[in-house]
């Protein structure tokens, strides 16, 4: 008999571990009759019994703290989750302007008042993209006509919260203390652990596309949060109170960062909405049939002129821009 055959026989373990008297007696007599198998038998026993190692205290960590962190992340605790009622301390009182506000003055703000967290707002104009580096190192690429509110600093270990209107791509820095990163966009919350993702929060319910890592979404009208995996895009359906999750197509959602739009059976209606949102052009009345025309491919958005030319070619339409108005004709 070879090693594998010994291991495959359940009664052999009874002999090896001396845990079953009948098995032990049987294999002992077999062993006496087959001395040529003794070495193999002992090897097989060594494989089964092995050695026993036990971890010392040093290799342990605070299990309770780990459970607390997990139950908070999953909203399992019975206490109201802290993240739901955001501590609104002193809000940045200046209304969002069209220019990116990162003034030098906040650097010199007195640091003495521990309770007062200063909030900053970064805003982009039409057609403008802006990278914003947050105090924790997280990089946010703000799309055109969007704004992001964030505090000038975060306390170690406390959750990092920001508020978004418009669209942005987040590359979140993972903190060693596991401080969660939370994006509030309209009625939705995105909870993050070291990851990159896109949030679009303009008209309808926000749309979140995850590129890598893991995020959890909460909506004030949803009974339970939902987890997103890379490559998935989620939005909240206000009517049935559920999250819609679709796989793939995250590339379409994030290509704006390279000043490219990627279309996959995208309707002209969606494209024109985007032009209105990101270039601030009003769309003149248009043939309804034309609006449902679909297009696939990609176009550069670096210059309005080339974008319109590409759309003309893709959709077989005429596009003219006049005094902030856009006319689209068959």
């Amino acid at each position: 008999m070879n090693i594998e055959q010994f291991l495959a026989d359940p009664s052999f373990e009874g002999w090896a571990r001396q845990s079953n008297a009948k098995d032990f007696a049987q294999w002992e007599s077999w062993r006496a009759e087959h001395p040529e198998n003794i070495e193999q038998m002992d090897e097989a026993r060594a494989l089964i019994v092995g050695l026993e190692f036990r971890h010392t205290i040093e290799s342990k960590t605070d299990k309770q703290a780990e459970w607390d962190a997990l139950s908070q992340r999953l909203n399992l605790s019975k206490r109201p989750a802290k993240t739901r009622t955001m501590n609104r301390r002193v809000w940045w009182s200046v209304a969002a302007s069209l220019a990116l506000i990162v003034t030098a003055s906040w650097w010199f703000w007195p640091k003495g008042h521990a309770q007062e967290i200063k909030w900053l707002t970064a805003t982009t104009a039409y057609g403008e993209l802006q990278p914003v580096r947050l105090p924790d190192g997280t990089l946010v690429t703000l799309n055109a006509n969007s704004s992001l509110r964030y505090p000038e600093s975060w306390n170690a270990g406390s959750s990092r919260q920001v508020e978004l209107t418009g669209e942005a791509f987040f590359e979140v820095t993972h903190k060693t203390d596991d401080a969660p990163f939370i994006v509030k966009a309209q009625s939705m919350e995105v909870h993050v652990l070291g990851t990159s993702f896109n949030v679009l929060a303009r008209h309808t319910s926000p749309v979140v596309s995850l590129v890598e890592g893991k995020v959890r979404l909460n909506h004030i009208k949803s009974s339970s949060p939902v987890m997103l995996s890379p490559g998935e895009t989620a939005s909240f359906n206000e009517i049935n109170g559920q999250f819609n999750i679709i796989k793939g197509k995250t590339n379409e959602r994030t290509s704006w960062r390279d000043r490219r739009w990627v279309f996959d059976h995208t309707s002209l209606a969606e494209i024109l909405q985007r032009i209105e949102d990101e270039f601030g052009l009003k769309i003149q009345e248009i043939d309804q049939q034309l609006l449902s025309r679909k297009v696939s491919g990609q176009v550069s958005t670096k210059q309005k002129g080339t974008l319109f030319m590409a759309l003309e070619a893709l959709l077989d339409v005429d596009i003219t821009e006049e005094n902030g108005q856009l006319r689209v004709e068959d």
Partner: protein
Amino acid sequence: MLKSSANIKKHWETLCQEGKPEALQALFDHFHDDLYAYTTRLLNSSSLAKDAIQNTFADLWQYRNRLAQETVVKAYLFRATRNHAIKLLRKNRPTVNLEDIAQQLHFEPEELYLEEASLLQKQKITAILNTLSPRQREILYLKFYDNLDYQEIAQVLEINYQSVVNHAHKAIQRLRNNKELRFF
């Protein structure tokens, strides 16, 4: 031992069927320390280990309705945590070679529970164990520290049973070749 594994099965079923947080917590309590010790040594990073365990249990909670009821819970959790750990490691170091995983995995002489052996003998045994290939070390680690059988180890490492036994066999022969250290 039997009583505890029956309890684990019960908690697992409660989690699948009723989705109770208490069941998740019971599993977390039972397995956390072993999973933490394993992944910490596997990747030489306690923060990656903590994240990997958190992600594993977050998945359990998220997919509690879809979990298979007949599962070897222990092997499942070790595999899931290992996979999460590797994913996190690759994110931090995209160029990491899969063969480098478990490079840091090691055995401590003080942790060898063998009454008849002296500390010097324990040091010799662990010295041999620590010169095995990463794969052999990982297999024996799961066997010696966490008491998984070879079928379960095959599940954890996602390799076939035969290759687990072959690796373990070679490693055991190395140990047994040293006559002075024949403790099994």
